């Protein structure tokens, strides 16, 4: 089982896709990860997105070997890594706190991994990795002499230098300020494309996940709620949790009353709306109707044409430059958000208290299962 390759005793030189098979992790009475199965194709940029406590970091730590699953298997290609120690896995981690060795110089930090694996060219490898993250000129400094963003780069170089089969990033940009975070997002994506390694990025920032990853898995309460390309996730959430966590959604709970061609007809608090059957996870009974704020148009006159319109009242208007954000009360009593791009020459004249009409293309609507807790949370959030 253990391959005595250049990695020294116990190192397993596995290659291929990362597979998690029914992985469960329990801590005392708490299930952090619940029967999770997942395949991450080799060379992809994969994001695990979820709120704190959803099990995403625990999943990452199990892949790294820093935690062992209670049940299930973790494989890279055909090699079963379950139960092996962190130092035996072709996996490296960029820690949230960077976890640089405070007593070593930047160069020694980066060459630490190659040295342990007996690489005679560890120094050269470290130089190259530092070059890749543009930190060569800091090679002789100690971590304490660097800023957060610089330490972040070194932490990345220290993991990359080993050319791991899977690189794990645990909220690596969490401690950086907004501007630096944006720069690093672009930078990480560039490096991933350049080195072609599998990156697994754990984050609670949906924007970060969407801008970088090829595939995003949204986690909640130890399970994957939905997985897919960022555009797909945003366009068609399959659960109300995803609808709220990835972007914002205007939701309303109602009942399916019939069908109209390819559409479901749904009654939400006295208003009739339509959802394409293909865009609904539920086809009868109770349903949560949803539409994204930017897909909704607002006007003071009743729109003519397609019947997806609702009379509402403006609660708040905020001008953000690119767009104007309205908060409106719909007949059901809940508050919806509406984003209008400031395309018109005429400035917006709507003020709080004004009666308005909302309208949207029913092709943008989606239907998900009713989740009372999430619906209540959405109320509070908006």
């Amino acid at each position, binding site marked *: 089982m253990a391959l005595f390759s250049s*990695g*020294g*005793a*116990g*190192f397993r030189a596995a290659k291929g896709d990362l597979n998690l098979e029914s992985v469960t992790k329990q801590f005392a009475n708490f299930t952090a990860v619940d029967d999770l199965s997942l395949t991450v194709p080799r060379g992809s940029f994969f994001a695990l997105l979820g709120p704190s406590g959803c099990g995403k970091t625990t999943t990452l730590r199990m892949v*790294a*070997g*820093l935690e062992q699953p209670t049940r299930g298997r973790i494989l890279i290609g055909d090699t079963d890594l379950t139960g092996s*120690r*962190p*130092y035996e896995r072709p*996996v*490296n*981690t960029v*820690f*949230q*706190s960077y*976890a*640089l*060795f*405070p*007593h*070593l110089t930047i160069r020694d930090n980066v060459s*630490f*991994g190659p040295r*342990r*694996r007996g690489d005679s060219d560890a120094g050269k490898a470290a130089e190259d990795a530092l070059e890749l993250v*543009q*930190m060569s*000129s*800091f090679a002789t400094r100690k971590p*304490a*002499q*660097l*800023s957060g*963003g*610089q330490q972040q*780069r070194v932490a990345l170089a*220290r*993991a990359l230098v*080993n050319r791991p089969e899977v690189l794990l990033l645990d909220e690596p940009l969490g401690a950086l300020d907004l501007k*630096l975070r944006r*720069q690093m997002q672009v*930078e990480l994506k560039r490096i991933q494309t350049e080195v072609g390694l599998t990156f697994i990025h754990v984050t609670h920032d949906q924007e970060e996940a969407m801008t970088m990853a090829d595939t995003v898995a949204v986690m909640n309460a130890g399970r994957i709620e939905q997985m897919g390309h960022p555009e797909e996730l945003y366009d068609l959430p399959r659960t109300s949790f995803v609808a709220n966590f990835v972007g914002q959604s205007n939701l309303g709970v109602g009942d399916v009353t019939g069908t109209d061609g390819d559409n479901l007809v749904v009654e939400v608090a006295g208003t009739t709306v339509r959802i394409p059957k293909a865009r609904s996870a539920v086809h009868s009974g109770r349903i949560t109707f949803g539409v994204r704020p930017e897909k909704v148009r607002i006007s003071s006159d009743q729109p003519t044409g397609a019947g997806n319109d609702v009379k509402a009242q403006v609660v708040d208007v905020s001008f953000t430059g690119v767009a104007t954000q309205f908060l409106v009360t719909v007949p059901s009593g809940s508050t919806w958000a509406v984003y209008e791009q400031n395309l018109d020459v005429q400035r917006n004249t709507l003020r709080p208290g004004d009666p308005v009409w909302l309208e949207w293309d029913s092709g943008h609507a989606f239907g998900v299962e009713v989740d009372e807790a999430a619906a209540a949370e959405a109320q509070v959030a908006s």
Partner: protein
Amino acid sequence: MSALAHVGGGTPGAPDDGPPQERGGRSWAPYLLLIPGTIWLLVFFVFPLLQLFTVSLQSGFPGFPGYYYRDVNFGNYLDAITEFAPHFGRSLLYAGLATFFAFVLAYPLAYAMAFKAGKWRNVMMICVIAPFFTSFILRTIAWRQILADNGPVAETLKFLHLLPGGRITETWVAVVAGLTYNFLPFMVLPIYASLERADPKVIEAGGDLYANGLTTFRKVTLPMSLPGVIAGTLLTFIPAAGDYVNAELLGSDRSTKMVGNVIESQFFRVLGGFPTAAALSFTLMAIILAMVFVYIRKFGTEELL
């Protein structure tokens, strides 16, 4: 590229980050606050030290034991060192052994307290500190009972044929054991403090970067706790090298005496021994200072100097 170069700009501790300069004249408050401490040091440390130094150079009146005259007699030093060289050797050897054993005992304890103890951490801390609530002398006398010829430790070892000399007290083993015991907390606390400050993630990073448990300890954990180890060894070695209570109470009258015992007897029991005692004190101080200097130069970090 240029944007990235910019990222590197904000080095910590840039001049403009510093605290604002004092405005409107100098403040005398810090100097005033230093006065009591300075006076204390002058009266109770610097002056006695100078006094001791002059005593170490005095010569005795021939024919009048116990009477001295002011002199610059460096021969006192030569006599003291040549006559009591074995005692110096024992002092350094016993202190070194005690430091070593204290380190071996303290490191796992401090490690457990920092990383494994959980809710028991405070209980362990109290156990380490609690002996200080009893007198040092009393605790050392208690060790005499524990190690006594008919005590449980000696009897058990004799039963197992592991005690060739037949006794523990009156031997160097008892002295080193006593020193180790008495200075153990001074080793535990600094090591614990430095381990407790260390980010456990940094130790995990060692494992993540292909270092097994032992290598991670050698290359990551131990170097990270080095400031604590150095502080602990100094706090153990320095007082242990000057100690005389353990050798007095646990050792024998001949073969286990340390420099501290000689100084004590020269000062208080030997007529005309003042210059010798003072010269021994100064020599011991010089040796320890020199050793500490070399030690810190070799292993120390900027945090200590």
